[in-house]
């Protein structure tokens, strides 16, 4: 309870928590806030039916926050509905990506630290070697820009899908190859983001676990006959997970912002917010001379994105304060 009060005593933490709760609320209440009903043609972008207009429409009766015109067809995309339902998909994407990234990174870091010997665990030469290899691979992955991975994955999937008919040569139906099975079930962007952002977690957990391994309670548990799995999962990970939790919380926002950015530059990453911004791009940077002429095309969604990022960032800082009392006293 005292900890909780300390978390709430800083206004930054309060704002962070408030923003995150707000977005979670919007995501949960999406069907109430923006009912799709029969009024909406339910596609990814919520086209307003029976409306043909080549300019974005300002906020009005038929669209609370205005619309964005989908170039040639003169179809009108509703900003408000995209904003509300986009929250849901952004939240799901961000939390999934950050959680899985943290999970993989923490596991890899813990295992490599456990193998490296000293204190407890396998202190064999093979273990040391394995730990060394894991660390080298981690460092190698650190040099890989995420955007290259995402572009590679997304385009490769497109490539395979487009050329599927060429591969039916040896009687093997194409859908049975490994990568196709994988990408049919998993979003390539999510996969790329997870596979190429776990490294900081691994390095951090590695360092933490090395320190904790030396502690007496871990050695005692091992002396009592606990196996490696029990030592890793019961003692090493729970005691070294704090920084990973903090980092993952802050990263939820980062993942969503990156996804939106990828959509904005034309890589189909599945972010409704980012796609709508991309479609509305020509209306925000036309040569009208007044950047706010079509403000509803980009302001609401940009604001949502920025607040989303800030909210999770502040919450991450807050959790850090909460779990690290030493920091609070220094302030």
């Amino acid at each position: 309870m005292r900890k909780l009060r300390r978390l709430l005593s800083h206004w930054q933490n309060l704002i962070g928590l408030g923003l995150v709760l707000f977005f979670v609320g919007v995501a949960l209440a999406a069907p109430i806030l923006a009912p799709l009903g029969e009024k909406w043609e339910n596609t990814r972008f919520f086209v307003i039916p029976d409306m043909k207009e080549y300019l974005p429409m300002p906020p009005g009766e038929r669209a609370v926050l205005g619309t964005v015109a989908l170039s040639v067809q003169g179809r009108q995309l509703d900003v408000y509905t995209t904003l509300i339902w986009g929250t849901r998909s952004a939240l799901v994407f961000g939390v999934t990506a950050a959680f899985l990234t943290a999970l993989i990174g923490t596991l890899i870091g813990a295992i490599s630290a456990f193998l490296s010997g000293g204190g407890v665990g396998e202190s064999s030469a093979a273990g040391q070697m394995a730990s060394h290899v894991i660390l080298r691979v981690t460092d190698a992955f650190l040099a890989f820009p995420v955007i290259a991975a995402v572009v590679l994955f997304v385009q490769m999937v497109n490539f395979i899908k487009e050329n599927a008919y060429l591969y039916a040569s040896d009687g093997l139906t194409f859908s049975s190859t490994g990568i196709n099975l994988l990408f049919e079930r998993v979003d390539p962007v999510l996969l790329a983001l997870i596979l190429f952002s776990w490294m900081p977690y691994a390095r951090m957990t590695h360092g933490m676990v090395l320190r904790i391994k030396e502690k007496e309670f871990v050695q005692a548990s091992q002396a009592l006959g606990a196996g490696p799995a029990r030592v890793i999962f019961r003692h090493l990970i729970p005691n070294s997970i704090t920084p990973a939790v903090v980092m993952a919380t802050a990263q939820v926002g980062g993942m969503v912002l990156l996804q939106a950015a990828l959509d904005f530059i034309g890589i189909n990453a599945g972010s409704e917010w980012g796609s709508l911004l991309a479609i509305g791009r020509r209306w925000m940077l036309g040569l009208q001379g007044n950047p706010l002429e079509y403000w509803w095309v980009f302001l609401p969604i940009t604001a949502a994105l920025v607040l989303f990022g800030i909210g999770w960032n502040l919450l991450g800082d807050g959790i850090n304060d909460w779990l690290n009392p030493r920091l609070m006293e220094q302030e």
Partner: protein
Amino acid sequence: MPPMLRFLIYRLLSIPLTLVIITMVLYGFVMLTPPEARATLYYSAGVDLNKMSDEEIRVLNERIINRFHLDDPFPLQYGMWAWNLLRGDWGYSAIHREKVLPALLRRSPVTVELALYSLLFFIPLGLISGVRAGARKGSPVDGRFRLAAFTAVSLPPFVMAITLMSIFYVGLHWFPPQRLGIQSTLLVRAQEFRQFSGFMTLDGFLNGRPEISLEALQHLVLPVLTVSLGYWGLLGRVTRAAVIEEQHKEHVIAARARGISERRLVWKHIFRNALTPALTSSLLSAAALFTSLFIVEIIFDFKGVSSLVVDFSMPAPDAPMLLGFSIYSVMATLILMLVLDLIMALFDPRLREGVISQ
């Protein structure tokens, strides 16, 4: 052996190792696809898929599979592919109708120029403002800095790009997008204009046409700002934290007790020691820097390296170019990391001697 040389050799040796690991992972992914898909990686110059029937493509693929043994197990195939990479044969892009490596190299001055100006902009600014804020923790200067840095870190590059563009381009007409205006682009492409370095800000002067350099600089303002702001905030915050931590160390207290001037204390005793952790932890993300560079490049319509793989008008995915782009990005990141490591080692003898590791 002098410590600096040993450091350099160790760093240089670790680069090929990293590259081997990364290319193995990449080719591992490629190996998941059927051999027919992999065949595109070996097309030679001049292959035009649009002019070929499905049957012809199939025959061509079959020939390539037999010739390059694409049915072999992973180590053999990887070895073959890596050997080609080493010889500079990165494949041929049937979509861009260009060999992959020359295409990447031709466009890299654009990206490198953008990166250089960003680094030269945000590293000094981030260090100076971080030290100033950290040295006077709790003062109004510090408060203003923390707010500014937090805002800068929270705004994602592409939102920053939209905002800056709508204010300074649409609203004020000060800084247009793209690398150069239409007229200058034509001028630059002409025969008489010699591309010495590929950096427009330099080549203009070298060709005796300073107005082109100035125009290139004007076009660089917004992209550089967009890339730099976030990194300025990050570096500034880390520097601030490092400076605050350093202030409680005994050597600083001793120096203060000896009556050293505050200015000398901050820059000679605190800053020098805070520099390494500050630069290390914020530049570990050199790869993230390239991610935002590529995003900014596309938004501001700079025809840089990333435009080869991210292009609205691209008819189909381009497998050889994609792999080439990935390897290129990794190499660029590694080179950047190496340069920054060397700079830090020059400043910090502890790194050279291997007393502290990164």
